[in-house]
């Protein structure tokens, strides 16, 4: 057990190390640097080399790459993620201001998508081949096939502009209000982006839930459950429990994909999440922010794996209590 844990940790460690290196290298491989973004175009061409270097030195970007890397790594060790070039604030603060919105939006979307996708998928699997299954299947695939930005804009058009039910942009209430009404308005502004992102995430979860249950329903224990006299829900319960594992796996995989993928939706709705932060930081070559966000994402992916490792034993006793070797 210990050796296994040790190896797992070592592997995760390697992944993190690789991510740290990539986080550092990838943004720097892109042409241009922060100064190219910071300086107004009409002035950009007028900077002398010395002036440019002075600006770069402000952000420690004039040092040789190995020195920068060393500073970055030692900063990581001490928990210092440096300061954003674009925002002038510590990266921790910049991310801190957005992570809540991302958790709300992406977390909410994943949960909703998991819930709806699983319910619909199970329902489809149970009625597979019948009209309601084919209807749901093609409906979900249709929704899944619409580019999220397209969905988002249509939603805005219908629900914001035509109906006026929901605001067009932003996460925060337009005016300073407190308490319940503020929460209400925050939720109200969350609805459209959340719906868009949820719709974008439901597809894979639904399909996995459906196919997982379909193949579970072919298992002999389901036949046995029916043969021993169980009906309807009791039979389904047998199979659903076992079909949950792949659903959880895909759900956790979706989290990572959605944080990045949310950039488009967050742009359409001017939602201040991490996806948009990544997008803008890439454009601004804001290396410290990129390093910070990617590290966070990497940790998130690893956490999702860990959560998976914790959840699987709950879902599957074969993981929890492996058979004795010689059984």
């Amino acid at each position: 057990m210990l050796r296994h844990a040790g190896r797992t940790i070592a592997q995760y460690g390697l992944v993190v190390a690789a991510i740290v290196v990539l986080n550092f290298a990838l943004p720097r491989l892109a042409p241009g640097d922060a100064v190219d973004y910071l300086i107004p175009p009409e002035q950009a061409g007028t900077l002398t080399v010395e002036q440019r270097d002075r600006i770069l030195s402000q952000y420690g970007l004039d040092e040789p790459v190995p020195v920068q890397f060393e500073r970055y790594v030692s900063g990581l060790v001490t928990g210092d993620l440096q300061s954003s070039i674009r925002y002038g604030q510590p990266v921790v603060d910049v991310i801190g201001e957005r992570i809540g919105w991302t958790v709300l939006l992406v977390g909410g979307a994943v949960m909703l998508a998991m819930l709806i996708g699983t319910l619909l998928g199970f329902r489809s699997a149970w009625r597979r081949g019948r009209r309601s299954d084919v209807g749901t299947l093609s409906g979900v695939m249709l929704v899944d096939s619409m580019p999220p930005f397209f969905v988002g804009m249509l939603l805005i058009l219908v629900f914001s502009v035509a109906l006026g039910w929901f605001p067009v942009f932003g996460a925060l209430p337009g005016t300073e209000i407190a308490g319940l009404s503020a929460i209400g308005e925050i939720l109200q502004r969350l609805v459209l982006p959340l719906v868009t992102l949820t719709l974008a995430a439901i597809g894979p979860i639904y399909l996995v839930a459906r196919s997982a249950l379909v193949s579970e329903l072919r298992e002999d224990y389901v036949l046995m459950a029916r043969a021993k006299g169980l009906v309807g829900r009791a039979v389904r319960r047998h199979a659903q429990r076992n079909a949950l594992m792949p659903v959880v796996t895909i759900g956790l995989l979706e989290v990572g994909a959605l944080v990045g993928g949310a950039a488009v939706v967050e742009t359409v709705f001017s939602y201040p999440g991490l996806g948009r932060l990544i997008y803008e930081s890439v454009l601004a070559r804001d290396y410290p922010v990129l390093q910070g966000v990617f590290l966070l994402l990497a940790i998130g992916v690893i956490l999702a794996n860990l959560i998976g490792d914790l959840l699987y034993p709950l879902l599957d006793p074969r993981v929890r209590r492996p058979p004795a070797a010689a059984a």
Partner: protein
Amino acid sequence: MIDVRDANKRFVAPGLRRRDEGPVVAVDHVSFSVGAGEILAVVGESGAGKSTVGRMLLGLERPDSGEVWVDGHELGDASERALRRIRRRMSLVLQDPYQSLHPGWRVRTAVAEPLAIAGVSQLERSERAASALEEVGLAPAADFVDRFPHELSGGQRQRVAFARALAGRPRVVVADEPTSMLDASLRRGILDLITAMRERLETTFVVITHDLAAARYVADRVVVMLNGQIVESGEIGQVLDHPANEYTKMLLAASEGRLPEEASCG
């Protein structure tokens, strides 16, 4: 022809299992030998390590310790390339006739595969494949060469598997439970095929089976395995008529539908 000396093999349980269970012992200090043209039956329940022994004979598994000599070559330390050369003089027949043939290949292609590997020309290949098919009782071969496995019955498939195994005129054939998936009425035909081949080609056979009746029917000698160890071995008549080991006795009794009353819960 075959000489296994004190071979050991352990497996680490794969997958999600905890690692502290310790490795599963598959083959535990096994030694036996088979003479040229002999038929050896390896008998035991599932999980006794029979199949691992079979795979070792082909170098598909390497022993952790001990030596496996086949036709004058030691397989345990041989390079992959050398192993491939040795294997070309050997052959393998597996249990499941539904899986042991490539479902997308016609019978002709499947049977000719060992010949293709040996570099036999296209023309000669199809001739020899046809004659191999007729040798195993699929005559006329022309009726079968263009069929796909799913167009054959289980017994026919297993015959095709034998035709393929024998097409390259191997010195040694390892047959892993060749009859266990077949209906009772087909079993005998396959076993007869093995003895016939031995007669005609002097091929050495290692037949792995849990079926004592089948073992008695084809084999010259038998090795009885339990939990990776050999518990008894010898001339087939000798062992089955006068079993010395309790386990062998129990197997015999069960195959006759009797159970020693003291036997514990299975």
